[in-house]
């Protein structure tokens, strides 16, 4: 068999394998993608909450995308405390001003950034939240101060539709 012939055969087999592999990949993708959030789940991205009944010093918990969102109406003392913390004392430095644009209202995802438990309200060494699973302490701005959690509790996208209604998402 001449060398040229061998090359052509190699090319034919390589091309067949390559085209076949593309097809296998294209077939597998739908089987994987079907587990991603479907169109109806994606459509439920926002929820509106009436906060007129929340008094200062109280927290309500609402469900958003299957997860708890803490909405706390903070007292003046709490705001002062949250804003006085020095950034260098923080494990994950973030200003309270950036976390709560309207200082009276703290809206955050009530999910510990360690392994996903829901922290307890007004517990822990920093007077904020305390996660019972592995002992992470958060301050009144939801920032991690002590324990295994790596980052502050997440602030979701939200806006005040009017003075009494918050739209999350």
């Amino acid at each position, binding site marked *: 068999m001449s060398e040229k012939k061998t090359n052509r055969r190699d090319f034919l087999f390589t091309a067949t394998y390559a085209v076949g592999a593309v097809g296998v990949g294209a077939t597998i993708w*739908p*089987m994987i*993608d*079907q*587990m*991603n959030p*479907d*169109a*109806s*789940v994606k459509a439920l991205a926002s929820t509106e909450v009436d906060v007129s009944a929340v008094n200062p010093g109280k927290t309500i918990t609402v469900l958003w995308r299957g997860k708890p969102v803490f909405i706390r109406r903070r007292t003046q003392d709490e705001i002062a405390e949250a804003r006085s913390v020095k950034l260098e004392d923080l494990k994950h430095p973030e200003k309270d001003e950036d976390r709560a644009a309207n200082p009276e209202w703290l809206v955050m995802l009530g999910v510990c950034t360690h392994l996903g438990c829901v922290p307890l309200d007004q517990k822990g060494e920093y007077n904020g939240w305390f996660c019972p699973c592995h002992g992470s302490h958060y301050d009144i701005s939801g920032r991690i101060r002590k324990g295994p959690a790596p980052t502050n509790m997440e602030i979701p996208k939200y806006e005040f539709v009017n003075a009494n209604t918050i739209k999350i998402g």
Partner: protein
Amino acid sequence: MSDHEYTPKSKFGKWFNDRLPLLTLANHLTDYPTPKNLNYWWTFGGILTFCLITQIVTGLVLAMHYIAHADMAFDSVEHIMRDVNYGWLIRYIHANGASMFFLAVYIHIFRSLFYGSYKAPREIIWIIGIIIYLLMMAAAFLGYVLPWGQMSFWGATVITNLFSAIPLVGEGIVTWLWGGYSVDNPTLTRFFTLHYLIPFLILGLVVLHIWALHVPGNNNPVGIDIKKPSKDTVPFHPYIVIKDGFALLMFMIVFAFFVFYTPNILGHADNYIEANPLVTPAHIVPEWYLLPFYAILRSVPDKLLGVVAMLSAILILAALPWLDTSKIRSAVFRPLYRQFYWILVADVLILGYVGAMPAEGLYLLVARVATAYYFLHFLVILPVLGWKEKTLPIPLSITEPILGGSPNLATAKNKESLNK
């Protein structure tokens, strides 16, 4: 099983293979000596394996989104069709995949009938095949119930009521099957469970089917025993793999056409109406692949005997290796059998056609004649043929009909086409 001892080359391979001979198995499967004269009717075994895997994979995916509850099943199917990413694609593959599966299995069965593949020493392969076929019908029926449309509901009602034909205990069995006094939520959930289970039973039986095949090796169009490995055989890989692959791709083109362009043509419109226990659809028809048996069921005027006839029509196949008394396997060398074979094919197609038509007048008459002939073929014609038929001389080796001892390939080809 293997004709030569296999020793892995690498040290680790040898260590592993001594403890679990997976490499020996892989080597057996790639080197497996296959008759080199297998024609394309033999590619349907590979196609069926593909069908089974496709049904299992798409079925697993659908089960992630489907809700087996009488109030939610229909909605969840629509949810799959509308919202789940690629859900429509996966469901249409699964629904049409059932039809393609049966299409392939019928070709596979009729290939076996033509070439006498069920005869000694392959009876066990054949009987396992019949069990697989029965389980396929069960799985297809159970699966058809799951979307909880009108055909699902009434199909389930009619088929489960077949059991009420059993004397004395029939009614009790039907109530037990339903888990209530009609087809309802308990029925749906158990059907879902069984529909999930059966494909894995089939998978296990397929392994046995192939195992039993690898003991005597494949039959072939000439139907004579061959030495293996020899000049009459080729290793399974790459020769048969590539040939099966080519046939599979052609099959997939047809499959794709159904899925993408006429996905509902093989289904029934009534199944897009949610199940309603108060209204029966005007025509209850099973899926096309069950129609011949449905025709047999309806052709017998007695309830119990109808069910018995239908079941016998399937079970009689299991006795086929002993009903066919001819020592010659391939119909190529059986001029009379060949004609009766094609009459049987026509008979089954006619049964399928009248099964789709209303059971009245001429249709009913045709169905009765066709049913009678079906049993006649297996119970009378086959045994008598083996005894009476004058068969053609069979060649000594499969190379003979192909090359015919002739150095010229063209004449050999002519001879081959004469043999068909």
